């Protein structure tokens, strides 16, 4: 990443609490809706999945692609954000 986006910064800077999944960078309204339909409405749901996949990048990206059709860039953003959050707060 050349630089982190605002969304990223906001997300990483504080506990995610009950934030919606669309606060994740790379996840916009459309993807967010799909995720919600699959049951991943909150950011912590995605985090949970992320952790279940043992934070493996490939798996996480694949999962994101499968579940909401995120492209490579979006996957990257989301993954990076969650990774950083985990590094900081786990």
């Amino acid at each position, binding site marked *: *990443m*050349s*630089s982190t986006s605002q969304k990223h910064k906001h997300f*990483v*800077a*504080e506990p995610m609490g009950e934030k919606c999944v669309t606060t994740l960078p790379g996840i916009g309204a459309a993807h967010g809706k799909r995720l919600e339909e*699959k*049951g*991943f409405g909150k950011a912590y749901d995605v985090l949970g*999945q992320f952790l*279940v*996949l*043992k*934070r*493996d*990048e*490939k*798996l996480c*990206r*694949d*999962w994101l692609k*499968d*579940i909401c059709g995120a492209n*490579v*860039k979006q996957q*990257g953003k989301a993954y990076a954000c969650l990774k950083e959050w985990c*590094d*900081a*707060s786990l």
Partner: protein
Amino acid sequence: MASTQLTDEELFSELKHFGVTPGPVTESTRPVYLKKLKKLREEQQQRGSRPGKTRSSGAINSTSGGGNTAGSRPASHDVTHLSSSRRPGRKSSVLGFSSDESDAETPLKRKGLNHSSRADRSSGFPPQPKIRPTTPSVANKSQYGVTSKLNSNNSSPGPGGQRSVSLGWGVRARSSPEAEGRDYDESGDEDDYAGEIEKNSRSLNGCGASHLNTSKLAGDYSDSDEEEVGGLSVGDQQRDRLEPNVRRSHPKAEFTSHGVGRGSQTGGAARQVNPPESLNMVGNRRVEGEGDEVKRMDSDSSGGLRSHNVPRKSIYVSLAENHGGEAGKNNHVDGEDGAYRSSTSRFAIGLRPRFSNYSSLSQTYRGNHSNHTAPNHSYSQAVLKQKLSVPEDELLQQFKREEVASSGSFSAHYLSMFLLTAACLFFLLLGLMYLRMRGSGSSEVDGVIKSHPFGSDFDDTYNKEDKDLILKLLLNLHDHLAQVAGQHDCGDQQHPNRSLSIDEASTYLQTQNPEFEDLVLSSLEWIIRTGQDVGIRLTGQVADDPLTDVSEISRLESTHPKMPFSCRFRRAFLTVISRVILIAVVVGCVWSVVCYMKYRWRREEEETRQMYDMVQRIIDVLRSHSEACQENQDLQPYLPIPHVRDSLVQPQDRKKMKKIWERAVKFLSANESRIRKETQRIGGADFLVWRWIQPSLSCDKTSIPSKVWQGKAFPLDRRNSPPNSLTPCLKIRNMFDPVMEVGENWDLAIHEAILEKCNDNDGIVHIAVDKNSREGCVYVKCLSAEHSGRAFKALHGSWFDGKLVTVKYLRLDRYHQRFPQAQGCSTPLKASSLHVNTTSTMNTMPRLQHRGSANSSGFS
């Protein structure tokens, strides 16, 4: 597929069978793991071995790598790739110790990213597998902007496709693509050259150059221009894609273009790799102009050079700069010239970074350009002799020699020396001439005496012969007297008297010319008659009486003594020396007096300051004592003066501080109204005591917080602190204000405060307070990064003394540079057991009473 019938457990075990440690297979993870299993099985079928499973860390790299192979990738991936690949090599230009520098943690990521992003833009283009002339990949253009310009002069061969070729290394990824295109269009194909192969080789070289440079450069210079590196990496990637017939080409694309221009060359592609001798290339270039065989050689060597591996860095830049300046001038079709110049500059690139040397070298070459044939030829010959196997050092030496020799005449050093000697000589001559003039001033009267100071009466009185005689007589007399006087002045013992008596004079004159005898007196009379100074002074019996008559004359003296030159010179010299010494002595005296005064003044200041400090301490002590007394009625409300002194001043300092103490006491009695001196009987002995007689103000002491920690301003979380501690060194800001600090040893108080705050952290080995910093900086070194991390957590964001303290990490090597004494520190510091609090309330009293805590109030 079989996988659909797998249960979760089976899926799990299958994956484990492949060596993966999968997470729980839930309904959401199932599809993912199924896919993974499928892939694993395919791979297994394909190769029978499994690719690395976890590529998490390299995921980004891999994606970017994949992107690369795919063709032009989006810049972001490049950035990632480059940044990640570059980060280890990059020395994070972290911080120095000034307050302006950025933090340690961010540059590691940010700068690298920023830089790589910049480089990426340029490098984003490169990964295009085609070096084909068609579209000189924009990247190439941008990469090799400079070189393209440079190459514009040289015979960049034929079709525009060569653009990529001439680009050499993207030292400056600055020139706009348009400019490049322009340049290319301008450069005609002056030279013929055989086709494709050369093109290819050239393009190869062009790319290869940058490629090679990159690989070398990245490792070498952490500080080198990112763009440069990026450009190089671009070339690198390109090269990778090129066919293997390129040999390890050397980042001298332009050379190839030159070479090509030179004549029919079968694209020296067939050269073998040679050690980088850019110098050789230079030589080759030069040789080019010389003739056919030169051309051949040139082509040969350029080919050979092409195969060189010369990873040079900033030299490129410098040369490129030099060259770039010339590029504009080189637009004439005289390819040779252009070639030479550009080649020269390019060659220099091949060597280790010797910026100044090379720039001067190129300048030299430039200067010699007009008559380059001869010197260049000889030089190139010398170079060629070196052959390609000459190690770099020899090459450098040669360069050095060459440039020194060739630039000697231009050297400012020589010029200045010359001017200096010329000035000295001039002044010397001037002085000598002056002396000689003075010495020979009297010889003006030589020869025929046409003018005399006696007036017209003289002419009337005597006829010509007499006149001549008289004048000659006088002249003789004058000379003789001058000689006598001169000898006398020079210390010659022959003439003890400076003057001659009249008899002696007469005798002498008679010996000169018998005819003088009669005229002696009359001539002397004439001298008296005239009021002017003719060079002879006549004195009578009694000195200083004006003579009126010839008979009164008793002695004659010359007023213009004639001294030999050496004597004159000696006298002058002595005079000068003595005067100079005198002046020096006077100046020295004055200066020493001034110094002494300053010293005294400084001492006074110091003592006054110490006195006030002492007074302050005494007041504090007394006040606190009186407060303690109020609460504890057992204590006496006064303190004996000697006791106070002994408690405030260390035993070893007592003698030194005696004077200061006296002054403080005097000051107190004169200027302090809240303290009264009285005599009390304590334990049977009379003591002079001080009594604090101000009723305590309720909020007096608490108005200004002293050096205490006052809690945390904000909780430390990810947002305002780095995720992990980076280095063992910390820089703490805003702990004090140097202007406001009073008292001595306040920096020790700060030490104590820090140690006290981090007393659970046994890892602080060095603390340094920067007393002069406006920001109140304190530098701390810990045993390890972990300790510093804990200290960071303890200190950052706390309130101290009413100021908000911030902490950041510093680089260890910079810290050691600044505090070399910290390198050896390895024992953790401990806070002294006393509480650092000058205005503590209850504690000072017992401390005062118990001498054991002689270091009361934390003064050490």
